[in-house]
């Protein structure tokens, strides 16, 4: 089952690259994006190692069960609620951005509300399935998407419009002071491991540690590729004008002999597979955390209404916010979430690794 864990990590890296990370990193491309990335690779790897190590001591237990022993109720319940909302927000932000992308590229005449509403319904159906089923689904989605991703990267690197000189130019701005915002955004790449808070019920964390080197290696590769390639196409100055730099990059690629000529549609479909999967995973984890906070048992006990009502409200709010905020302010909201996420993640990792120690001493 450990391979599913790496698939989820890979999925996270990829989804963030598309939607949020480049926006922030590219904003800071002249003041410390590269150093921030280097720092975030270290931070991300260390955090994930500590976390996996800590959670592997509780085989087949999710965070709610672990905290049941470690924390008193008045801290545990608010903390789990807060975490749950963080997770739900991650899924909502990603699906919101994706709906915007669909509106731009696939269904320009359709109302954004309808697109997002439909996607939210898909997410609600998907995320109310069992965690184990979602893990199986992850296997299919990632396996379908990854050959196409490899193909697109290959296509990009061999394209006539790819000028490595721009990459050299942007690398000249490497030695700048890193800043918090970029570090928070870039370290978000590595955050796939955190889904173990629930998936630890199904995935054995011990087996993951055997291949742990994959996380930093994969992370570095994806970060480097996805951050640098768009520069080669768009130039260091004008890249700042685009909301989805990768979409524009891929739109320059043609498949001369394919049924589909514009590679960008391929990319949209891959994004769709991956971002819906990402939404399903985050919402499922958020839902499980919420259930854990309130002590609601499995759906076998007949409490199937709670997930539906809860996710219904969440879905409505997602659509509502997407409607009221324009795209700029939507990304501002995403940025706030990013900046909040890093401390919360560190807090969670520390809590999980240090609390058992306190218990041992007492």
């Amino acid at each position, binding site marked *: 089952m450990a391979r599913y864990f790496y698939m989820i990590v890979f999925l996270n890296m990829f989804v963030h690259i598309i939607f949020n990370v480049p926006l922030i990193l590219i904003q800071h491309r002249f003041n410390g994006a590269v150093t921030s990335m280097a720092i975030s690779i270290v931070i991300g790897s260390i955090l994930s190692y500590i976390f996996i190590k800590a959670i592997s001591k509780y085989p087949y237990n999710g965070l709610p069960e672990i905290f049941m022993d470690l924390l008193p109720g008045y801290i545990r319940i608010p903390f789990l609620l807060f975490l749950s909302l963080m997770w739900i927000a991650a899924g909502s932000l990603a699906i919101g951005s994706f709906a915007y992308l669909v509106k731009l590229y696939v269904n320009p005449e359709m109302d954004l509300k309808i*697109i997002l509403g439909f996607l939210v319904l898909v997410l609600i159906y998907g995320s109310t399935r069992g965690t184990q089923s979602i893990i199986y689904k992850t296997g299919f989605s990632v396996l379908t998407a990854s050959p196409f991703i490899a193909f697109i990267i290959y296509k990009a690197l061999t394209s006539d419009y790819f000028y490595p000189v721009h990459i050299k130019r942007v690398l000249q701005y490497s030695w700048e002071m890193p800043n918090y915002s970029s570090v928070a955004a870039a370290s978000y790449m590595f955050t796939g491991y955190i889904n173990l808070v629930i998936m630890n019920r199904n995935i054995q964390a011990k087996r993951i540690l055997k291949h742990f080197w994959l996380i930093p290696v994969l992370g570095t590769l994806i970060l480097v590729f996805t951050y640098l390639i768009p520069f080669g196409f768009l130039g260091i100055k004008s890249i700042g004008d685009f909301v989805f730099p990768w979409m524009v990059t891929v739109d320059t690629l043609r498949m001369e002999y394919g049924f589909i000529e514009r590679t960008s549609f391929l990319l949209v479909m891959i994004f*769709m*597979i991956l971002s819906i999967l990402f939404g399903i995973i985050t919402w499922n984890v958020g839902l499980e955390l919420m259930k854990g906070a309130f002590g609601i048992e499995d759906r076998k006990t007949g409490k199937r209404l709670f997930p539906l009502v809860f996710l219904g409200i969440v879905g409505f709010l997602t659509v509502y916010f997407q409607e009221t905020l324009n795209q700029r302010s939507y990304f501002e909201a995403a940025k706030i979430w990013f900046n909040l996420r890093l401390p919360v993640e560190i807090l969670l990792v520390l809590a999980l690794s240090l609390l058992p120690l306190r218990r041992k001493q007492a």
Partner: protein
Amino acid sequence: MANQQKIVSTLKEQLGNSNDFKIQDIDSFRKKIVLVYIESLIDYKKINKDLIDPLLLCEKEDKYLLHLLSLPPCRQLKTEDNLLSLLIKGNLLIITTDFIFSYDAKKATNNQPGDSAVEMAVLGPQKALSENLSTNINLVRNRYPSEHLIMEQQTVGTMSKTPIALMYDKKLVDHDVLSDVKKRLPEIKMDMIQAIGQLENAMTKKKHHLFPIMMITERPDRIALNLSQGKVIILMHGTPFALIVPAVFFDFMSSMDDTSHTFWTNMLMIGIRYIGLLITLVLPALYIALTSYNPEILRSQLAATIAGSRAGVPYPSFFEVAFMMLAVEMLVESSIRLPKAIGPTATTVGGLILGQAAQQAQLVSSIMIIITAFVAISNFTIPVNPMSFAIRVARYPLILLASFFGMMGVVAGLILLICYLTDKRSFGTPFLRLYRGSSRRIEKITENPKGEKG
């Protein structure tokens, strides 16, 4: 003596004046022996050989009784036995003054295995199961000569009392599945069960489900293979089909011929099957999405060709697809049950005239005709019948999603389908998941068979 008369008269009373109910008195050893049986169920030859001939040869009653008890299908009855149900099951009752014996003389009907007609194999074994339970058990035991093979007999159906046999390899079987099956079988409350599909539906807990979670097969070789994979087989009297529990998605995509081809041939065959699956599932939906919503996805020449062929068609692509799908589904449905003499007419009228004329009348585009044919043909590449039917149904939600949301709807529909399939469990076994290793040995028994954890 009085007792003997009393039994016979009560039986007479209970069965009424059914013409095939026979009572035969034989005077022998200076006593009366009464044979009671239902004529239509009894094999005369067997009775003559086993009961009548020895009766004439034996000099003493003790000796004859000994002979009766030595016959394997014969047993002495106790007072609590229900004589009537024994009679109806095809037993012959031998009522002497002191004892009652029952002798199983059931006439074996339909016990010749026919050629396999539903799951064909080119190079594999050619014979299917018969309609007789004991012949079928014999066939399975012959193919799976293992001392661990267990057979348990039960009946299902409150009225039909259809005999079924549960077979499994006790060393390899997944015990959770087995106990689940054993728990579900007595819970079935149905009067008449005559087909294995009925049993399947009765055993499935969810009422509205699309994909089969048990596999119906007529091939003894598939049964033997599945026994070796640790599955439970249910054979039923009166049908040439068996039920395999549990079954996962990839089982339905495998044909028994897969074992007899060379590696690369095999790869091609399996590849074609999966491509067929994908085509039959998404092509109509894709047509709607690509003509009505996102023609820009296709390369411009292709988009222009499609648009050109659709130029005379007066309504949106959704109706076009709906018409043609309706026509082809009707064609398939009608040709399944038509007598062989009329069959070709239906296909000619349906296929040639409808397709050709509809296109010339500009009711549908010519590309739609190609797509219709393609979809119908590729549906037949799915080797196991219930799955191919299920896929036929699964196509329509996709068509609906495509006509509302275009390309996004198609992809979302596929994602939902995968969600649905991965969430399905066949007796606790995940219905669809990726796994490494041979596709034929689905459950390695040494590992955690469920794969739910670890």
